[in-house]
C-alpha cells in the first residue's frame, strides 16, 4: 500500500513538472513573436517567418503537453487528426489558392 502511494506521488510530481515545463516553453514562444513586433527587431519578412515558426512549435507543445497527444496515443485519435489535417489542407489550402489567384487576376 505504501509503495502504491509513493508511486502515485512520483507520477504526480512527474505530471506537475511536465505542465510547468510546457507553460514556460509556451510563455517563451509567446513572448518572442510579440517582442519582434513590438520593437520591430527584424525585417518584416523575417519576422513573419519567425512568428509562424514560433506559433507552429507552440501548437505542437500544447498538443503534446496539454492534450497529451503523442505516438503512444490511441490509434483512432491519431487517425482522426490525420484525416482532419487532410481535410483542412484541402479546404483551407484550396480556398487560399483559389481566392488569392482570383485576387491577383482582378488587379
Amino acid at each position: 500500500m505504501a509503495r502504491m502511494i509513493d508511486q502515485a506521488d512520483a507520477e504526480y510530481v512527474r505530471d506537475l513538472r511536465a505542465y510547468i515545463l510546457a507553460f514556460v516553453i509556451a510563455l517563451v514562444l509567446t513572448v518572442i513573436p510579440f517582442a519582434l513586433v513590438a520593437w520591430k527587431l527584424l525585417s518584416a519578412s523575417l519576422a513573419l517567418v519567425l512568428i509562424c515558426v514560433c506559433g507552429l512549435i507552440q501548437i505542437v507543445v500544447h498538443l503534446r503537453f496539454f492534450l497529451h497527444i503523442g505516438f503512444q496515443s490511441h490509434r483512432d485519435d491519431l487517425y482522426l487528426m490525420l484525416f482532419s489535417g487532410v481535410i483542412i489542407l484541402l479546404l483551407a489550402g484550396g480556398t487560399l489558392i483559389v481566392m488569392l489567384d482570383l485576387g491577383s487576376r482582378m488587379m
Partner: protein
Amino acid sequence: MNATKYKHAGLNLGTSDPGTHEQAESPLFGFWVFLMSDAVIFSLLFAIYLSMLDATAGGPSARDLFELKSAFIQTLILLTSSFTFAMASLNLKYRADEPRRLISWLAITLLLGLIFIGFEVHDLLGMAARDALPQRSGFLSAFFVLVPTHGIHVAFGCLWLIVMIIQIATLGLRSEVKTRIMRLGLFWHFLDIIWIGIFSVVYLWGLL
C-alpha cells in the same frame, strides 16, 4: 496493464481511477471528433480572413485597428488559464479526495476566462465606436466572424465551467462528472491552440 495504457486525448486517469479510466474512452473519443470538426471550421475561417486581408474597401485596416498590448494581455490570460486547468486536471487525477482544491482551480480558470472575454468585448466595442463594424468591409466581416467565434467558444467554456463546479458540489466526483471535466479540459486546451493561430495570424501579422 490495461489501466496504464493511453486510451484517449488529455490526461488519462490510469491507475488512479481504473474504473472511470475504462469508461472514459468512448465519451472522450466522441468529443475528440467534435473538436476536430471544430478545427476544420476554424481553419476555414482563417482561410477566409487571409483571403480578405486586403479587402478593406477604403476602410480601416488591421494596422489602424488592433492594439498589440491588449492582444498580448489576452494571450497571457488564456495561456495562464490553460495552465490552471492543467492544475485542475492534476487534482482531478491525484487528489480526487479533496474536491475543494479541484473546485478552486476550476474557479480560477473561470475567472481568467471571464477576464479574457471582458478584454475581447472591450476591444470589439472600441472598434464599433470607430465605425469598424462587419458591414464596413470584407476584411472586417471576416474579422468579426473569426475572432468572436473563438470568443463565443470561450464563453460557452465558462458556462460549462460553472456547470461543472455546481455538479462537483452537488453530485460529487462520480465517474460521469470526472469524464465531463476531462472533456471540458480538452475543449479549453483546444481553444488555447486556436488562439495561438489568432494572435499570430490576426494580431501579429496585422501589426507587423
